[in-house]
């Protein structure tokens, strides 16, 4: 079976620094893949290039058997590729409910329909229930705690029923209980058929949840295997602990 997402030779330089250096990897449909690596190994750059937030200098991207020539966040999202950000990004001035409703893809001619029409509202409320945010539906998202914002960002991404979700450090900066909650949500959604690619520093979380684990070092994947194998891979240990 062809992979859901394939990156081939992605290269991206910032000045003299090669953040991505002919980086190639594949994401199998139905997997929960992890992208790990030491700081500065190019994980977030990989996310930005894949989702079209930064143009790649070179390389090819295939998503759902389609060559993505010039990745654009809006178009990719409409194809089913959604992402979250390292620093939870919500729309602070919009209500929690509106934050989720916004995730629903709209054709241009629906722009003059009601701000939060009934069908969208019901679906958004279901999502908020699922994420334990229903009590805050009418509150501006800016008033949520950081952990709640992470959950809200995740929930809003799900509104469009994506095929592949890229999570950038879903557990960074949130408390251990919230980490467990986040893990549960990922598992539930995975069970419903969503593929995940997760950048994460919290290794226990990765080892529990993800398979395979892709290890990046200096902009290039050095390993892609099951978590146990990766843990004992001398190249990986070298990348993390070596010079």
């Amino acid at each position, binding site marked *: 079976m062809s992979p859901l997402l394939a990156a081939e030779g992605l290269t991206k330089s910032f000045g003299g620094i090669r953040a991505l250096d002919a980086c190639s990897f594949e994401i199998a449909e139905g997997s929960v893949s992890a992208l790990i690596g030491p700081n500065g190994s190019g994980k977030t750059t990989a996310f930005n290039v894949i989702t079209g937030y930064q143009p790649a200098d070179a390389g090819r991207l295939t998503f759902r058997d389609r060559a993505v020539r010039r990745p654009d966040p809006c178009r990719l*999202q409409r194809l089913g590729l959604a992402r979250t950000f390292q620093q939870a990004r919500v729309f602070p*001035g919009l209500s929690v409910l509106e934050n989720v409703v916004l995730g629903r893809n709209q054709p*241009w001619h629906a*722009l003059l329909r*009601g701000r939060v029409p009934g069908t969208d509202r019901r679906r958004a409320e279901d999502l908020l*229930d699922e994420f334990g945010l229903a009590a805050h*539906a009418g509150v501006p998202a800016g008033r949520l705690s950081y952990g709640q914002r992470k959950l809200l960002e995740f929930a809003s991404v799900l509104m469009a029923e994506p095929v592949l979700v890229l999570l950038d450090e879903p557990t960074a900066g949130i408390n251990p209980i919230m980490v467990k909650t986040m893990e549960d949500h990922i598992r539930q959604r*995975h069970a419903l058929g969503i593929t995940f690619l997760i950048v994460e520093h919290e290794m226990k979380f990765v080892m529990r949840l993800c398979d395979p684990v892709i290890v990046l070092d200096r902009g290039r994947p050095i390993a892609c295997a099951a978590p146990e194998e990766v843990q004992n891979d001398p190249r990986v240990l070298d990348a993390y602990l070596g010079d």
Partner: protein
Amino acid sequence: MTRPGARATQPGARATQPGARATRPAGLATRHGSRSRIRPAGALQAAAFVAVLAVLPLILGQHWQVNLLVFTVMYAGLASAWNLLGGYAGYPALGHAAFFGIGAYAMAIGTTHLGVGGGYRPFVLIVPIAVGTAVAVLPLARLLLRTRAAAFAVLTITVLFMVQTLAYNIRGLTGGSSGLLVPIAPFPAATFERPFYYAMAVLLALTLAVCWVVRTSKLGLALNAVRDDEDRARGLGVQTELVKLVAFAVSAGLTAAFGAVWAYYLTFLYPGFAIDPLLALGAILMAFLGGRRTLWGPVVGAALIGPAQQYFAYRFGASHLYLIAYAVLFLLVIYLLPEGIVPSLGRRLGRLRPAAPASGTHDQVATDSLFSAGDLG
């Protein structure tokens, strides 16, 4: 090697179905239940406002009073039109005087060169002028909207001065610095200002209606998202490019419409007055004072500053000292009421009576803020 993804479905996944509604607190359903776009309170508010607009010149009938009303209503409309782009979408456009001037010159040229005729007929020109400006600015808007924040502000100011320079130099059309005369309207002297007042009032009502439609639609939601975090909005599939263009074009078209009426009222156009940076800044100041991001904020701001501005200009006009009063006012607004009067008032009233049903003007201000949480910022 284990099958990819096998781990994720390990035991530990909670049994609850996504979307189980059990945890919803009571009362939420009523607050967020299906809600029509037209609230009875809002409809009442609109009707009252239209009634006030209609009778104002009959009550304040002196020439200087109606003249003041013409300008105040015009500023309320300009501030509301600016708010579409500057408030809802958060794009700090500072060059709307350019579109105002384009509307004004289009009216003057239409009446002098094209021979539309006198009397009420020039008012018909407003429609093609507004639509034409909205369409014509699209390529420019596309270019400008590639920038954001300070860069966008600077570029829009540049556009303003470019248009002004063009007005000075395309003498064949604009008369350059010798100005352009528009035929004086043959209205009876006793009520000369009234047709212009009503033209402005109709345009203001139309502008507010447009603002209301935008605010209560997906378009408004998308614009608010652009204001809060444009990049994330793109990643959520919001057509940021399209909604920004629509907001820009509509805002510019409405601004041009007011310029057209203004030109017919003043009957003399000079580039420095028709394309006046202070006009744009005045409108923006009003939107800030009343509360940009709100529907009524720009109107409230104009009602307060419009007459005050005329007074300042009258008292200190010759020396342009009134501009300092303007600047002081702007600083005070930014410092004391960063969100503007309407949101602040709404919040205060909301705190006093959190559960009170909407009735009366002030409560409507509060619910208007509630309607879009964006107003609470």
